[in-house]
C-alpha cells in the first residue's frame, strides 16, 4: 500500500502532553479520552487512524469540534508530528523527510486553506496570493502574472491591491483559496475552510470549489462539521469521534448503512431524497418491465414522480449506457426517503 499513489495514513496516534510515549501502552489498550485526561494528564488527539485517500478525489473528514479532525489534517503536511504511525504521500514517507525536504513538500506539493483565513494582514491580496510562489522562489514578475490569474479565477479581479481586512469574510476566503491554488500543489488541505462564512456565501464557495475541482482534479482533504457540506462535496466521508474513525465511506454508505448509533443520530435530520441515489436502493432486474426508465444516479426525490407515473408503480433502472441494471418500486422509494429502508439486496 505504501507504494501506491495518493495519501496513506496508517496506525496514526497523537497524544498531547508532557510524555506521550509513557501513556502510549494505555492508549493502545483503548483507554478512554476522558480517563487519559483525568488520570494521566494527557490529551488523546488521534487514535489508530487508517485512511487511504485516492488521488484526485475529495476526502471529507467530519466530526464535532474536538474530535481531532483538524489535528488529523495537520499530520499530512506535518504541521503536527504524530506520536506514532505512518503518513505516506505518493509512495514517499512524509515522516522521514528532513527540514529541507519537508519545506519542499509544503512549497510544491501540499497547500492549505484555513478556517479563519489566516491571511497576512500586512500584505495586499496580490502578495497574499503570491506568497506560496514567493516561497517557491518564483520571480516577482512571474508571481504577479500567475497570482493575478488565480485572483481572477476566484472572482476577485480588481481587488489585487486591497488589504485583506478591507474585504468581506467570503472574499477573504476567496483570497485564501487563491493562495492555496496558486502554488499548483496537487494536494489541498482545507481545514473548515467555509465554516466561518454565512450560509449563502458558504454554498457559493462550495459551488466554486466543485467547479474548480472539475478542471483541476486535485486531491482535496476537506475538514468540516457540517454533514450537508460533507455530502455535497465529498467523494468519501470519514467520520471521526474522540480521535478515532467511526466510519469511512461514500455518502450512500453513510446515510444508508450508518456504522453505529452515533452516526445514525448524526444523519437523522438529513433529507434523504436529495442525498440517496436510486442505484443504492434498487432491487434486482425484473423481466417484463419496460419504460419509463430511471437513471442509476438519479436522486430519490427526482425518481419519485417518474416511478409514481409508471404502470404498476415500478420502473426500470438503467446505467449511463441505457442498459437495465435493476428495478425500483414506489414502496421501496418511499421507504428509503422516510428512512425505513427495506433490506437492500446484494447487487
Amino acid at each position, binding site marked *: 500500500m505504501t507504494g501506491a499513489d495518493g495519501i496513506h495514513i496508517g496506525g496514526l496516534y497523537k497524544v498531547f502532553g508532557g510524555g506521550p510515549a509513557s501513556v502510549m501502552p494505555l492508549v493502545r489498550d483503548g483507554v478512554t479520552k476522558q480517563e487519559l485526561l483525568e488520570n494521566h494528564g494527557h490529551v488523546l488527539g488521534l487514535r489508530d487512524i487508517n485512511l487511504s485517500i485516492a488521488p484526485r478525489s475529495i476526502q471529507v473528514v467530519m466530526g464535532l469540534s474536538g474530535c481531532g479532525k483538524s489535528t488529523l489534517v495537520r499530520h499530512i*503536511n506535518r*504541521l503536527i508530528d504524530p506520536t506514532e504511525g505512518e503518513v505516506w504521500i505518493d509512495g514517499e514517507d512524509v515522516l522521514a523527510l528532513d527540514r529541507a525536504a*519537508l*519545506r*519542499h*513538500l*509544503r*512549497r*510544491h506539493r*501540499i*497547500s*492549505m486553506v*484555513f478556517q*479563519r483565513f*489566516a*491571511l*497576512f*494582514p*500586512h500584505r495586499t491580496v496580490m502578495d497574499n496570493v503570491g*506568497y*506560496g510562489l514567493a*516561497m*517557491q522562489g518564483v520571480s516577482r514578475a512571474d508571481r504577479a502574472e500567475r497570482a493575478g490569474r488565480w485572483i481572477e479565477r476566484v472572482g476577485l479581479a480588481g481587488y489585487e491591491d486591497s*488589504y*485583506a*481586512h*478591507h*474585504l*468581506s*469574510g467570503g472574499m477573504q476566503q476567496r483570497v485564501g483559496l487563491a*493562495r492555496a491554488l496558486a*502554488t499548483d500543489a496537487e494536494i489541498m*488541505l482545507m481545514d473548515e475552510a467555509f465554516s466561518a462564512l454565512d450560509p449563502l456565501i458558504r454554498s457559493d464557495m462550495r459551488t466554486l470549489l466543485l467547479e474548480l475541482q472539475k478542471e483541476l482534479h486535485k486531491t482535496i482533504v476537506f475538514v468540516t462539521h457540517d454533514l450537508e457540506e460533507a455530502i455535497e462535496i465529498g467523494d468519501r466521508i470519514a467520520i471521526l469521534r474522540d480521535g478515532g474513525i467511526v466510519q469511512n465511506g461514500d455518502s450512500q454508505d453513510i446515510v444508508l448503512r450508518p456504522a453505529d448509533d452515533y452516526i445514525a443520530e448524526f444523519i437523522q435530520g438529513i433529507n434523504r431524497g436529495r442525498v440517496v441515489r436510486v442505484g443504492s436502493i434498487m432491487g434486482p432486474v425484473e423481466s417484463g418491465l419496460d419504460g419509463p426508465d430511471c437513471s442509476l444516479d438519479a436522486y430519490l426525490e427526482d425518481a419519485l414522480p417518474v416511478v409514481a407515473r409508471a404502470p404498476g408503480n415500478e420502473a426500470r433502472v438503467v446505467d449511463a449506457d441505457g442498459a437495465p441494471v435493476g428495478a425500483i418500486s414506489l414502496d421501496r422509494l418511499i421507504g428509503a426517503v422516510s428512512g425505513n429502508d427495506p433490506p437492500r439486496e446484494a447487487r
Partner: protein
Amino acid sequence: MADWLQSFPTLDEGALRALKKSIDAGYRAFSRNYGDAIESFFDPLLYVLIWFERLLLGAPWWLVMGAVAGLCYASSRGVRLTVAVAVAFFVIGYLGMWDDTMRTLAIIFVATVLAIAIGIPLGIAMSRSNHVQAFMLPILDVMQTMPIFVYLIPVVMLFGLGKIPGLIAVVIYAVPPVIRLTNLGIRLVDREVLEAADAFGAGARQKLFGVQLPLALPNIMAGVNQTIMMALSMVVIASMIGVKGLGQPVLQAVTNQYFALGLFNGAAVVGLAIVFDRITQSYGRRIQAEREARS
C-alpha cells in the same frame, strides 16, 4: 535573652569593610587592566557621536529644522504636527538654546540607534525561547529599577568622565522597553497566520522577516518611542558625568538657583520629547491603522 534576638545579627564591621574593599579592589584591577582596551573598543562610537554632533552644529539652522520637519511629515503625514514641530524648534532656537539642543539631539539619536541595534535582536532572541525570556526578564527588571546613579559609578570608573560613559549610561537605562516590546510584539503575532506561513513552506528567517517582524512593528515602534523618552529623561543625569547639552544648564541652574535658566532648558527637553513622541507614535499608529478594523 540571647544577644542576637535583641539586636539584628550583622556581619561585623571589619569583615563588611573587607568585603566592600575586595569588591572595589577587584573592579579597580579589572578597570586598570582592561579599561584601555574597552575604551578603544568604544572609540568608533565616539567618532560617530562627535561627527554627528558637529554635523548638527555645523549645518545652518534652517537646514536642520527642514530635515526634522521633513522627517516628521514623512512619518506622520500630518501637516499640523509638522508645523507644530517647526514652531517648537524655532522657539527653542530663539531663546538661545539651539547649540545645546543640537548636542542633546546628537546623543539621543545615537543612543536610540544603539538601543534599537541592541534591543531588537535581544527581543527576537527572547521571543524564540522561553529559557532566554526567563533569563532576561529579571535582568531587565533590575536595569529599570536600579537607581541610575548606581550604575554610573562602574561606568565612570571604567571610562572616566565624558561622552562615552554618558552614552553607555543612557543606553543601559533606555534599552529595556524596546527589548520588552519586541519580544511581546513577536509573541502576539496571530498563531494561525504563522501556521499559514509554515504550511506554505516558509523557513525560519522568511517567517521572521516576512511575517513576525512586520506584524510586530506597531509594538516595536511603541518600544522605540518609550526608549527615546527614557533617553531624554537621562539628559540631566548624563550631564553630571560630562555630557554636554540641555542637561548642563539645568545642573548649573540647580546649583546656583537660576530658576529661569532651569525652566527654559527643562522646557526645551520637554519640547524635544514631545516632538519625538509624536513622530514615533504617529508612525506607529499609521502602520497599525492599515491593519486594524478587520471586518
